């Protein structure tokens, strides 16, 4: 059995390694995990290569050149330190900042813009060489494009860095100290300076500073949970008990904690060479997958870039075949690229994500990686820890049994009273035992804190009892003082009981009171009577039966049950001066009076059941993965709703129908409780079966390594998996998960490093709020993108019509940049503040293959419908401006060559007036401004319609999102400033526009609104119709 256990480690540690290989297909993986166990085991042994646990103390001294009494000499230690490096885990290799920065410079649309910039410079070069009149325009344009790329790159980098910095500050640790013997002296050294061969002393509460071979130990216990997931502390001694270094008792591992006792040992491994160090380095080997939103954005970039390049190339060919000069064609190409690329969009997306990240941080979800914000929203399976995440992580009295009756206690987080019936004299007796037979104490100086928040010295059960008593009875310490303790036998594993003898607080009663608590069956054995309603009654078989039933019932709820009994010692036999001796036990410990049972559990957090049911309605499967006992796990799963009240496991069905487990149709069972031991022997297909066929799954007694297998299993189902974890050994699973969630309070640094998100309050409910935010941002990003893409058509059409119809240029490249990076930025960010249209937690998680961020409908509706209306509106304004200044539309067609000719300074308009080149240019800029203003005005309408995708604007509320109005006003404000404030700066190509031109496009803006309202109305009226399918994005 123990031998088998080592298999788990070997398989899993190596299992992780498998992931590094390219995934050649499931077949091979199955084989790897199943068939090669033995070989793997060998590998691990070789890898671990530890035989120190077999060596005797003197052999060890020899091997490491040290002395157990004197330790290393400082000089020797310094030498080894220089050779091995400091005793700390190398943090996972971070991408160099410069690489991150450069990535921002070339990622996404940047490449297209660089191409545009380079083309600009090339055409500048050609023009300059030809000595044309004003070639600097293209130089400036290139510079502006390059600046745009660099600035948005810097911005995105800054945003990334900002969110990473939160984490950096978070992971900073207080340097650990270690007590080392060097030069025959005990010294406090930073743990980082430990070297192999150092003699260290550890005591209860310390973190083990390195892998240590123990030489001496007194009652030493270590908590290996971060390494093996076993939550029970394990004792450590200097005896060699097992061949496997991971199993033997004389080795304590780095980063585990010493729970109690003291020990001395030789450091045998430091830093990355420790067992934990190896696991941590394996974790960093698990490749980070692209986040779903990154995939979506990539898809979107491809789409837009595809459109840009194909239109660009198409019109390059058209313009060349229309006998435009190559140089001109290149300039057109630049314009088309600039018009097509939403320069500001990626920055907007980053801002929206970081806004959401901020909002999530407020709700205790700290997001390390901005993109993970959305991943949480597309999550379809959450693998959650139990302890601390689903539960409060503290034992609490849940039930009481006295007077033949089970009472429930309040287990909520902030209990102040207990509602159960406290009138029975049996309760008075029981409460006295609970109060007195308890060694736990509050730390002093916490009188003002609520009882539940006070720190207690003592173990978990005693703490629970102390707090329980304090809540009901008031000041426990005073009661204890009034009932002076005269003798005590603490709990130990042989006796399985705890006993103490007290004076009573009744001055007239000189009897001593003996109180005892412990394992119920052991306590019952020692009792001959039982208290019913305050009266002692003989413990007959009927009453014993009642006890058994109650005990089983409480135990079946996964609760830890304690029995309580007492005995008033007769005054004549035990006078005041009676010398109680706990070693010889000169007092009765049998024929006591049984008083009652108390059962304790780590109760679920009160917000969790609600959160779980939210997950359920949101189509998210919650899987509990815990190292705890199946019964407890199932009980908690039931109480929080992970296993719903009506569903049954195979075992439950078998029990109900009274048939063997094998005969139960597995499909009938919706729930499953899988033991880690079963899981170990399962093939991957079997695991897949379980994951597929049961909607409610609990994995109990699992090691953290098995989490990785579970996560992979879920991912094979195509799910987006969120995993919570706190231990070092969780880090591979956290990395492997689509979104790893580390616990902020209980989590180890390794877990936090590997995770994408940190839950500051360790509360499962926070994950659910995170999911909600993630889904909302996905919807809102859709809106943002739809908003941004629309005007691209209104920016692109001018170029196309300019090329084909040879009209004067309707809008300039620089002007386009002013829309993309000026007026449109704040409104598109404002859409990130939009409230959800319907209950987003009532729909299934999006299918990452089908529900794209930018789908065909979105692109087509934005580009070919709203975009076209915008273009028409803008062109009407353009023609109006030209017509009212003297150029009627008919005159404009085909006018381009003469219009742009510097040598024509008496260009005739429709009325016979003659224009110089500059006068025409100024008119052209007025046209730019008018076109710009029209797009801006229509973008206001576009912004309003994008608030919702299905609901009417009036359902959503026009004024609920105040930020939208900030957006609208900023948009108009920036346009006003550009036109009237900067209208005289010729380089910007803006002119002070006649006021009425602002309103030419207003009817089209209204048309956009009305059209979209009609679209939404039809979508709501006829769900599933042709219209719905084609018009809903």
């Amino acid at each position: 059995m123990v031998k088998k256990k080592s298999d788990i480690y070997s398989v899993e540690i190596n299992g992780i390694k498998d992931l590094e290989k390219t995934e050649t297909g499931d077949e091979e993986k199955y084989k790897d995990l199943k068939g090669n166990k033995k070989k793997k085991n060998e590998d691990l042994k070789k890898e671990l290569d530890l035989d120190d646990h077999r060596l005797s103390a003197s052999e060890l001294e020899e091997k490491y050149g040290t002395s157990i009494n004197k330790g290393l000499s400082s000089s020797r230690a310094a030498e080894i330190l220089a050779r091995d490096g400091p005793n700390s885990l190398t943090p996972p290799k971070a991408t160099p900042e410069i690489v991150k920065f450069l990535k921002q410079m070339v990622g996404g649309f940047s490449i297209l813009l660089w191409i545009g910039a380079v083309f600009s410079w090339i055409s500048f070069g050609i023009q300059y060489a030809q000595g044309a009149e004003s070639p600097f325009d293209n130089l400036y344009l290139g510079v502006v494009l390059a600046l745009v790329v660099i600035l948005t790159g810097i911005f995105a980098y800054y945003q990334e860095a900002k969110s990473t910095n939160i984490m950096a500050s978070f992971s900073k640790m207080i340097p650990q100290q270690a007590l080392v013997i060097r030069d025959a002296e005990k010294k406090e050294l930073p743990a980082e300076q430990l070297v192999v061969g150092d003699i260290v002393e550890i005591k209860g509460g310390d973190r083990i500073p390195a892998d240590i071979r123990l030489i001496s130990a007194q009652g030493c216990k270590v908590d290996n949970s971060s390494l093996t997931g076993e939550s029970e502390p394990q004792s450590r001694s200097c005896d060699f008990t097992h061949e496997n270094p991971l199993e033997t008792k004389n080795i304590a591992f780095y980063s585990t904690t010493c729970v109690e006792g003291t020990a001395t040992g030789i450091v045998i491994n430091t830093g990355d060479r420790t067992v934990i160090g190896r696991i941590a380095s394996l974790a960093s080997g698990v490749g980070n997958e692209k986040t779903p939103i990154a995939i979506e954005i990539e898809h979107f970039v491809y789409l837009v870039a595809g459109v840009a390049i194909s239109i660009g190339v198409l019109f390059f060919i058209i313009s060349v075949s229309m006998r435009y000069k190559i140089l001109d064609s290149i300039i057109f190409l630049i314009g088309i690229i600039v018009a097509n690329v939403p320069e500001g969009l990626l920055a907007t997306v980053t801002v929206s994500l970081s806004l959401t990240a901020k909002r999530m941080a407020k709700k205790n979800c700290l997001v390390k990686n901005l993109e993970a914000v959305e991943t949480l929203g597309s999550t379809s399976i959450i693998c959650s820890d139990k302890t601390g995440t689903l539960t409060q992580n503290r034992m609490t009295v849940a039930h009481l049994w006295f007077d033949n009756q089970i009472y429930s206690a309040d287990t909520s987080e902030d209990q102040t009273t207990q509602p159960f019936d406290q009138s029975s004299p049996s309760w008075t007796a029981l409460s006295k035992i609970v109060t007195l037979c308890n060694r736990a104490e509050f730390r002093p100086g916490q009188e003002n804190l609520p009882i539940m928040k006070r720190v207690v010295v003592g173990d978990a059960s005693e703490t629970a009892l102390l707090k329980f008593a304090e809540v009901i009875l008031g000041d426990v310490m005073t009661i204890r003082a009034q009932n002076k303790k005269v003798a005590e036998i603490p709990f130990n594993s042989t006796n399985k009981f705890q006993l103490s003898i007290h004076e009573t607080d009744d001055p007239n009663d000189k009897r001593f009171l003996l109180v005892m608590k412990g394992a119920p069956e052991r306590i019952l054995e020692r009792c001959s009577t039982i208290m019913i309603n305050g009266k002692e009654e003989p413990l007959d078989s009927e009453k014993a039966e009642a006890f058994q039933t109650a005990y089983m019932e409480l135990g079946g709820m996964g609760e830890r049950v304690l029995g309580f009994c007492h005995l008033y010692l007769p005054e004549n036999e035990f006078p005041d001066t009676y010398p109680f001796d706990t070693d010889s036990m000169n007092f009765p410990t049998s024929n006591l009076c049984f008083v009652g049972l108390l059962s304790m559990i780590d109760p679920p957090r009160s917000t969790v059941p609600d959160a779980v049911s939210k997950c359920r309605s949101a189509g998210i499967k919650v899987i509990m993965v815990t190292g705890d006992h199946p019964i407890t796990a199932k009980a908690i799963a039931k109480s929080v709703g992970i296993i719903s009240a009506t569903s049954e496991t195979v075992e439950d069905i078998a029990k109900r129908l009274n048939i063997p487990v094998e005969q139960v149709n597995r499909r009938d069972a919706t729930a499953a409780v899988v033991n880690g031991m079963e899981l170990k022997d399962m093939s991957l297909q079997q695991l897949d079966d379980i994951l597929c066929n049961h909607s409610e799954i609990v994995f109990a007694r699992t090691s953290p390594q098995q989490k990785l297998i579970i996560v992979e299993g879920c991912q094979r189902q195509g799910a987006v998996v969120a995993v919570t974890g706190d231990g070092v050994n969780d880090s591979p699973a956290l990395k492997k998960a689509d979104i790893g969630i580390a616990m902020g309070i209980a989590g180890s640094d390794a877990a936090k490093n590997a995770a994408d998100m940190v839950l500051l309050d360790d509360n499962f409910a926070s994950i659910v709020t995170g999911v909600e935010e993630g889904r909302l941002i996905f919807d809102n990003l859709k809106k943002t993108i739809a908003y941004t893409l629309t005007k691209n058509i209104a920016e692109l059409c001018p170029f196309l019509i300019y090329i084909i119809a040879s009209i004067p240029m309707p809008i300039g490249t620089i002007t386009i940049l002013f829309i993309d990076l000026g007026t449109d930025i704040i409104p598109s960010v404002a859409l990130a503040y939009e409230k959800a249209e319907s209950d987003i937690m009532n729909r299934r998680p999006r299918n990452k293959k089908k529900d794209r961020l930018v789908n065909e409908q979105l692109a087509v509706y934005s580009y070919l419908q709203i975009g076209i209306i915008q273009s028409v509106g803008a062109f009407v304004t353009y023609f109006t401006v030209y017509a009212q200044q003297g150029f009627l539309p008919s005159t404009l067609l085909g006018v381009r060559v003469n219009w742009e000719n510097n040598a024509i300074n008496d260009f005739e308009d429709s009325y016979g007036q003659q224009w110089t080149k500059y006068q025409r240019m100024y008119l052209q800029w007025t046209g730019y401004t008018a076109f710009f203003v029209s797009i801006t005005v229509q973008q206001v309408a576009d912004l309003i319609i994008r608030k919702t995708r299905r609901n009417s604007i009036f359902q959503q509320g026009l004024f609920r999102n105040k930020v939208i109005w900030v957006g609208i006003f900023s948009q108009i404000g920036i346009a006003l400033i550009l036109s009237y404030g900067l209208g005289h700066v010729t380089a910007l190509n803006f002119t002070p526009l006649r006021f009425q031109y602002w309103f030419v496009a207003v009817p089209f803006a209204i048309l956009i609104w009305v059209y979209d309202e009609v679209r939404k109305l039809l979508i709501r009226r006829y769900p599933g119709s042709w219209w719905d399918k084609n018009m809903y994005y």
Partner: protein
Amino acid sequence: MATLNEKKTCSERMENFRRFVWNPETKLFMGRTLINWVWISLYYLAFYVVMTGLFALSIYSLMRTVNPYEPDYQDQLKSPGVTLRPDVYGDRGLQIYYNTSENKTWERLVTTLQTFLTAYTPAAQHLNINCTGDKYFIQDTFDGPNNTKLSCKFTSDMLQNCSGIADPTFGFPEGKPCFIIKMNRIIKFYPGNGTAPRVDCTYVGDESRPLEVDYYPANGTFNLHYFPYYGKKAQPTYSNPLVAVKFLNLTRNVELKIVCKIIGAGITFDNVHDPYEGKVEFKLKIED
């Protein structure tokens, strides 16, 4: 995650694309059924027909609102532009270079002038009336034929020595070339505020340096009776009055920078952005 990382081979991609174009199982052509394609095409057809209609309607109503005789605004035409003939543009504006000994170099300049003046022959001007007054020729009514307004005659002989009649070479071979200055038309523009605007040519940047110029008509004025201009529809036969300048003492083999301004109230020539507003600058180099 494996599903997302699948690297597809080229043939797989092609196959996928072919399935996208025509999927025989689902009968989908480019992701839609054929009937669906018909519907969507019809919808877009209708949509674009409506949009075209709206656009046409907008332009139609725009055309209904604009005045056929004069534009609503003349925001850019506050001051008329000035042009020069012959007009040869180099990299930095007008550059008239020629060599007196090489006929070819000036013949094309002369041709430009001759061509330009064909619009000013008596035959070309026969529809216009002779005007004599030195006042603005204000017409509130349509007195001309076909509901038009009358235009004053300007014939090339008014340019005397530079008319090309006496000297068909416009003085180019002698190094005393004629240039014709023309002021751009602006509707209802009253230049000079009652005084006839006149052309004044100087060296650029050195106005005191004497430049001997003969102006035709006398004093280089644009007679006021050519103004105001009532637009193409009202005055279909209108032709701009001209002023010819003949430079008499040009230094040979040196590039000369000359500016001809039009002096008159309402005509500005200090717009830094527009080199042709109220003035015309040109470089002249006569080699021999």
